[in-house]
Each structure stands twice: as structure tokens, then as C-alpha cells.
């Protein structure tokens, strides 16, 4: 019935440990404050060592109880426990010594050993509660490396699309998955459940419930089974409020276990399904916009353009490429193009739809070497000068909707080798197409005029 008493006493350990620290340090301080042959503090020193050592004894007892009842493993506590007992013993030793001497200053140097023992014990204890690297964590990285090792990095798994077969299954697939999903709670500094998942050795060692890889029935290993429990299950890992691994990541761990958790296996030999690898392939996307080296944009020059009425934004944060639109600048005229002069190489997207531009604008546009998207819809351009765009070799999309552009004008665009699509909805070209049929063009011509003919079901009401 009183079984709670011991665990409860154990829980007083974190409080009681401060008694010996405070009182013994006070005793040693008094020794250092004593001049040679000065006995003034001697009674106080004796008392401090006695009380401090008794405090130490209480800390030892409560600490041992906590170790017994709170599920700490011997590995975790061993040094802290040994040093704790040693410190307490040293405390009593100095108490005995201080009873015999007459000159406290004679203890000066030997008593520093007591401080040393206190520091070591305290630090080891702190490591148990706060985790290893409690101090180094807040240090700058170069200082951290001085104290041995930086925090484990947790880059998500990436695989090369070519040659993934040759990857070491454990080291280059399983471990990265564990790193990005599990390591924040299961690392050498912070072993939740006594489990460290940061290395092969630690993985094999398992946690406080024993091994996490079942070498008889690999698929029953708790490494995978706990991750495959329903999310609302108490034992589900990672905890439900944490980010969950991708299902492909689980598949890959499962497959590794199916292959008897071999540490020498190559990924290719395990024959994973391609779709499990798909999400991890690092693809070099073929950039839509040109990749060119340009000076970074200066905010002031953008602000100046905005004040003139342009919509100007980098295509993405930090990109030197610019998207320019005259959506709020319907009075834009040909000569206003000069305002963009200094940034001409940066402009990749230029929307002049609905502005006052004329055929003249096309001559000016040749000064924009990286122009990729050009919108000239709903303008007065006739198309006669479209051939001038032939010098631009980066343009991919041209919008000419609701202009007077004819099919011959559009054919003159074939000089632009990079051109992918031209939009010419509601133009003479669109009606010409309907009568003449499709000319062969190296790019896609979208003239729209889609219709959804009436069908009987349009009017049947059930």
C-alpha cells in the first residue's frame, strides 16, 4: 500500500542534489577565504562539510531510488551514480579531516578535488535530464565542432535517378529515412525510450524494450510495426502530432527488413518498385525561364518602375528575372518601353495586353534578350512587324488574342526557334484557319473558338 513512497522519494532527487552542491561549495569557499593560521571559520567549515555530506547522502539515496523506479538503465546512470557516491564519501572525508586540523587553509588545494567531483557529478546528472550536448547546442557551429561533433543533420532522402541501383540500401536509403523522420527524438543526445536510431550500432542495440529488429520474423520488428500502427494507436510512431513518414519511406524500410535487414545490401538487389523511389528522385527541372547570370535587382529601381504604374515583381523570391505587367497601366504607350531600359535583360515576362501599343513596340522588344513570355493581346498591333521578333531566341509564348493578326503574320514567327505556343483567339487568323485548315507550324497555334454544340440532354429535365 505504501509502495508509492519510494518512487516518491526518488522524485525528490532533483531537489536534494542541490543541497551538497550549495553547502559543500560554501565550505570550500570558506577554506579559501581563510588566511594562513586563521581559525575564524573553522567551526563553520566543519558544519558545512557535515551538512553538505548528509545532503549528499540524501541525494545518493533518492537518486538510487529514482534509478530503481523510473526505468533508467544502468548504462545511462552509471557514471553519475558512481561519482555521486564518491563525492559524498569525499565530503565525509573532508569533514573528518577538518575536525583534526587547526589551520583550514591547509586544505586549500585538496578541497578543490571535491569541487571537481561535484562538477562532474552535476554535469553527468544534467546530461541525463537535459540530454547530451545541452551546452553545445546553443553554441555557434565552429565552437560546437571544438566540443566534438555538430548536431545530426536531417536532410530528407534523395536518390539519383540514374544509378540508384548501386546505392547501399542501409547507409544511403534506410539511415537517411530514419534521420529525417526519427532522429530528432532518437539520437545519442536524446534517447527517448532508450533508443538511438542514428547509426548501425545503435540500431542493432535497440531501446529499453529490447531489440527493434526481430531477426526471426523481420517484418514483425518493432522498427516497422510501430510505424504501421493506426495513427490514433497509443504506440504509433512517430507520435501522431509529429510529421509522419511518407508511405514510400515505410515501403522502403519494410523492403529492407524483408531482405533480412542486411547492412551490405544494394538497393538494386532488393528490387524496389519504381514508384516507391519516385518521390525521392532529384530532378533537374528543365527551367522554363532562361538561366542567365544577371546582377541582382535593386529594390529602388523596381520601386521607381512601380511609381510609374508598372506591375514589377521578380518571378520568384530572390530571382533576378522580372515579370512586368501593365495591368494597372492601360495608358502605356510605345515610348514608355524605354522606362524598362535599364532592366531589359532582366525582363522575362512582359504583359502589354490592353495597352496603347502599336506595331512600333516590336522594334523596341528586340532589346529584351531574355524575354520568354510576351503578351500583346487586345492591342492595336496589326502583325506587320511581328517578323522583327525573329531576333529574339528565347521567346516561348506569345499572346496575340483579340488583335488584327493574320495567319501570314503568325507564319513569320517561325524564325523564333524557341517558340512553343502562340495564342491568337478572336483574330483574323482564327477565322482564316477555319476556312483554310491548319498550316504546319513548328509551334502550337491556339486560335480557340471552341464550341459546345447543343445536345439533347441539355434540355431534358428529370
Amino acid at each position, binding site marked *: 500500500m505504501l509502495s508509492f513512497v519510494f518512487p516518491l522519494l526518488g522524485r525528490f532527487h532533483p531537489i536534494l542534489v542541490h543541497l551538497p552542491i550549495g553547502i559543500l561549495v560554501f565550505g570550500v569557499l570558506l577554506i579559501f577565504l581563510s588566511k594562513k593560521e586563521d581559525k575564524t571559520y573553522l567551526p563553520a567549515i566543519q558544519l558545512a562539510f557535515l551538512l553538505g555530506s548528509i545532503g549528499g547522502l540524501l541525494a545518493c539515496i533518492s537518486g538510487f531510488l529514482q534509478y530503481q523506479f523510473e526505468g533508467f538503465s544502468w548504462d545511462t546512470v552509471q557514471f553519475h551514480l558512481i561519482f555521486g557516491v564518491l563525492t559524498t564519501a569525499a565530503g565525509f572525508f573532508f569533514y573528518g579531516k577538518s575536525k583534526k586540523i587547526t589551520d583550514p587553509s591547509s586544505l586549500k588545494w585538496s578541497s578543490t578535488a571535491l569541487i571537481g567531483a561535484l562538477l562532474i557529478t552535476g554535469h553527468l546528472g544534467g546530461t541525463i535530464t537535459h540530454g547530451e550536448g545541452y551546452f553545445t547546442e546553443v553554441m555557434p557551429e565552429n565552437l560546437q565542432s571544438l566540443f566534438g561533433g555538430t548536431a545530426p543533420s536531417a536532410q530528407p532522402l534523395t536518390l539519383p535517378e540514374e544509378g540508384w541501383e548501386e546505392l547501399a540500401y542501409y547507409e544511403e536509403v534506410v539511415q537517411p529515412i530514419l534521420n529525417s523522420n526519427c532522429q530528432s527524438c532518437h539520437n545519442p543526445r536524446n534517447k527517448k525510450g532508450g533508443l538511438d536510431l542514428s547509426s548501425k550500432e545503435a540500431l542493432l542495440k535497440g531501446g529499453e524494450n529490447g531489440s527493434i529488429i526481430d531477426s526471426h520474423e523481420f517484418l514483425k520488428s518493432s522498427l516497422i510495426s510501430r510505424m504501421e500502427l493506426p495513427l490514433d494507436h497509443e504506440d504509433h510512431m512517430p507520435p501522431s502530432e509529429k510529421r509522419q513518414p511518407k508511405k514510400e519511406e515505410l515501403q522502403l524500410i519494410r523492403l529492407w527488413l524483408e531482405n533480412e535487414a542486411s547492412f551490405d545490401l544494394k538497393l538494386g538487389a532488393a528490387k524496389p518498385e519504381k514508384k516507391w523511389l519516385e518521390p525521392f528522385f532529384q530532378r533537374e527541372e528543365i527551367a522554363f525561364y532562361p538561366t542567365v547570370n544577371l546582377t541582382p535587382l535593386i529594390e529602388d529601381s523596381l520601386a521607381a518602375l512601380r511609381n510609374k504604374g508598372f506591375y514589377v515583381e521578380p518571378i*520568384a523570391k530572390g530571382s533576378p528575372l522580372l515579370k512586368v505587367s501593365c495591368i494597372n497601366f492601360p495608358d502605356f504607350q510605345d515610348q514608355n518601353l524605354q522606362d524598362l531600359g535599364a532592366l531589359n535583360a532582366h525582363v522575362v515576362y512582359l504583359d502589354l495586353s490592353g495597352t496603347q501599343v502599336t506595331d512600333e513596340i516590336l522594334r523596341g522588344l528586340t532589346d529584351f534578350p531574355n524575354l520568354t513570355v510576351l503578351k500583346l*493581346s487586345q492591342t492595336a498591333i496589326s502583325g506587320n512587324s511581328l517578323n522583327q521578333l525573329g531576333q529574339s531566341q528565347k521567346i516561348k509564348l506569345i499572346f496575340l488574342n483579340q488583335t488584327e493578326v493574320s495567319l501570314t503574320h503568325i507564319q513569320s514567327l517561325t524564325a523564333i526557334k524557341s517558340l512553343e505556343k502562340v495564342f491568337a*483567339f478572336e483574330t483574323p487568323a482564327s477565322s482564316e484557319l477555319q476556312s483554310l485548315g491548319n498550316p504546319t507550324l513548328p509551334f502550337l497555334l491556339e486560335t480557340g473558338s471552341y*464550341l459546345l454544340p447543343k445536345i439533347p440532354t441539355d434540355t431534358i429535365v428529370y
Partner: protein
Amino acid sequence: MSVEKLLNELVGKKLQTQTRRHFLLDCVSKMGGLALAPLLFGCDLGKNGTLNSGLQLSDRDLNPLSPLPPPFLGKAKSIIYLHMAGAPSQLELFDFKPELAKYHDQDCPESLLEGRKFAFIRGVPKMLGPQAKFSQHGESGAWISDYLPHFSKVADEVAFLKAMHTDQFNHGPAQLFMQTGSPRLGRPSLGSWVTYGLGTENQNLPGFVVLTSGGKTPDAGKSVWGSGFLPSVYQGVQCRSKGDPVLYLEDPSGMSRDLKKHVISAINQSNQEDFQNFGDPEILARINQYEMAYRMQIEVPEVMNINDEPDHIHQLYGTQPGEESFANNCLLARKLVEKGVRVVQLYDWGWDTHGTDHDGSIDMGLRNKCRTIDRPMTALLLDLKQRGLLEETLVVWGGEFGRTPMQENREGKKMGFLGRDHHVDAFTVWMAGGGVKKGTSYGITDDFGFAGVDERTSVHDLHATILHLMGFDHEKFTYEFQGRPFRLTDVHGELIRSVIA
């Protein structure tokens, strides 16, 4: 005694009580206030709009809707989200289950019911076979039923998510979940997040416009387009396709536009003076809002007017100007996106087909309902495509959950009409346009269409994917609130790579 005398006496008494001590005591607190003043941000402004401490006011401080570049190069710059409020039946539209037909009118197997709760189904319901005829369409061979004969022509433009799942089986919470990422009130809607992140391109129009049809607004109320904890300027602006597009935008009779201009410039001048005195950037934001409202008065009625559209466009959409209809809203959506509006959210009410009456029946009411969206939504895709807008506009279609493969048996009784209950384990959503892989289908449900068996996608996954297409990393797009950063996807969400081009 006259009142005057009384007042004089009062002043005299007051003066007597004001001692040197009062003065000194007061000084202590007032001096403290003076000392604090320069430390406070808002009071630290020079006259040129820069902070004396060297901080530069950003455009965002002055105009919260000013555009921002996306963190990454997004494929889409606008979204049109078509939300079918009430939840359409995936089993009659996209998720073809021939196997289910064989079990029509048989008792539902116990295994499907174990441990499950339904909104209305009680006891053991009968299975309900598909009521539509399915066929494959386009080069992609997408299964689409005869309920959507027009839409089937654009099958190759679309990516289907067929194993969507949610965890809310009531309309309100499920709609909130679908639109805000949380079934409870208080989170910003998808549209608000995007508007907050990207601002708006057209400075004369709101960044986030909401249009409703079907006679009712969504069950969850206006919170589905609310801004939650984001500044309220990012909430959706509900416009009407019938009558004034925005309520109270029209000048009252007798109030000329010139007069309005005078009023606004007088208010702004007074605000400007306040700004000179106090230097609070909020005042500049307010000045901006007045100016925007003034500009909106011109541009909104113009963009919201579909009368000037050519006949072939009206025929394409099946629009009737002056109506409050999904067709009109689709046409408006295109016009708004064309004008640079960031997010257009359409809600169409009336998809809750329980089988309680004719309109709510799977074989008749649903068919009628489908007819009202089939042509308009197909027209929307085609119209965006022919204008080149589909390259940079993301179109999303879906309800808040799916419907059961079982026939509803409200109160355990057989119903007068064929109906399906709310269902969280499987439903279909489609996406098209900016950055979406055309002609794909992702997600497989079991033979009954009861639950996803492979490639399941959650509401958070959908949000993550939408944000990705707009140029955001859903894990990094956060807003600091109540001491922690918040995300649209909370701690969930995985990119659905298979539907990204």
C-alpha cells in the same frame, strides 16, 4: 446662487487642491511616457515615410494587398476553385464501380459497417449500384459518366484525385476543413493564405473574390472564405452576379462621384495630417484603402458585367445575364482571372443527395444538378485554354466529402427516392490548368468505391499540392499567431507529385 458662481467656486476649490506635490507626482509618470515615446515603433517616423531608426516601410505596410513574388517559381498565378457545396456523388460522376452494380439492393456487408459512423445511415443499409452510365473519354481514357456529357470532352485536360479522404462527415465542419485546413472556426481559408502570400496584381480589384450560386451559401457560412487570424483584408470579397456586384458599392442617389471624390480626398488629407503628427503606418494603410474602394467602384461593376461578352461566349457557357447561376459565375471567374484577380472561389449549393425528395435523388435530382454545371465548367476550361489563361490558372473542382456506396436508410427506413449518405473515406476531386499533369488519374478505391486502397490523398495533401503549384512550400509558408507559426496544412500534407506536370 447662479450657476456661474457655482462653477467659479468649483474651479477655485480645484486650484486649492492642486499642490506642488501633485505637479511633481504627475511629472514622474508623464516624464516616463515621454522617455518611452521614441522607443515605440509607431511614433518613430520621419516625415518622408521612413523610420528615424532607419527602418524602411515596405509596400506591405502601406498597402497590405500589394503584390509579392512567390517564394518559388509557381506554375500558376491564380486559382479558380469550384466547390460543390453539399458533396456530389463520386459514384455517379467519376468513380466507376461495375462491381457495385452486382450488389445493388443487397445488404451491405458487415465488414464495411464495423466501427463506422454515418450521418444518417442506421443499421444495415442496402447497397446502391451506380445510377449513371460510364464510358471512357479522351486519350487518357478517363471514366466519366453520362451525367457530364460536355465535361467528358475535356477529360484530357484534367487530373483526377479519386481516393480523396477527409475526417468530417457533416457539411459545415467538412467545408471548413476543405477550405481552411481545420474543421473548427478560426483558420484562414486557402484563398486568404494565397492572397496574403502573393497579394493582388490588379490594384483596382480585390485579390480574393467569392461567388455563390444554387440559392444558398455554404453551410459553414462565410468562414469558409474568412481570413481567420490573418489580417481581415485578406478575406474573400463576396460578389453577387445579380444586382449590385458588391453591396453598398454603388453611390447613394444624390451622391455624385465628384462629391464622393471630394469626401475621400478630404478624409485622406485629414488622415495625412494625422500621419504627419503621429507617424503611424496604419494611417497610410487606411488612406490606401479609401483610394482602393474608390477605384473599385469603377472597375468592379465593369468586370462583373457580362452583358458585353460576345454571343459565342454566352452560348459556350450557357449564360443568361442577370441570373444568379453557376454558369454566370464561371464566366465571371474567367473575367476576374483575366483581370488579375488572384483567387476566385465559386460555391454552388445543392449537391446533398440523400434521396429525401425528387431534387435530392441520385437518379433524377443529381442529373438535373449536373446539367447546371456540366456546360459552364467545361466552357470555363475551354475559354481559359483559348485565351492562354489555363497556362497560369489552376482550376480545382470538388465537394467537401463523398457519398456512400450504400443507399441511405434514414431512421432505418427505406426512402422514397434513391439517395446516398455523407461519406468520408472516398471522394473525387479534379484539378486542371497551371502546372497540373493533364490526363492523369491518381488514387484507386475498392470495388465498392467505399475507401481508397492505393494512392490515397488527404485534404492536407491537396492543400500542399495547390500551394506548391502557386509557388509555396506548404511547410515553410507560415504566419505567426498566438506565439507559434501556423500553416495551412498544420503538421500534415504531402505533395501529390503524380499530378504535377
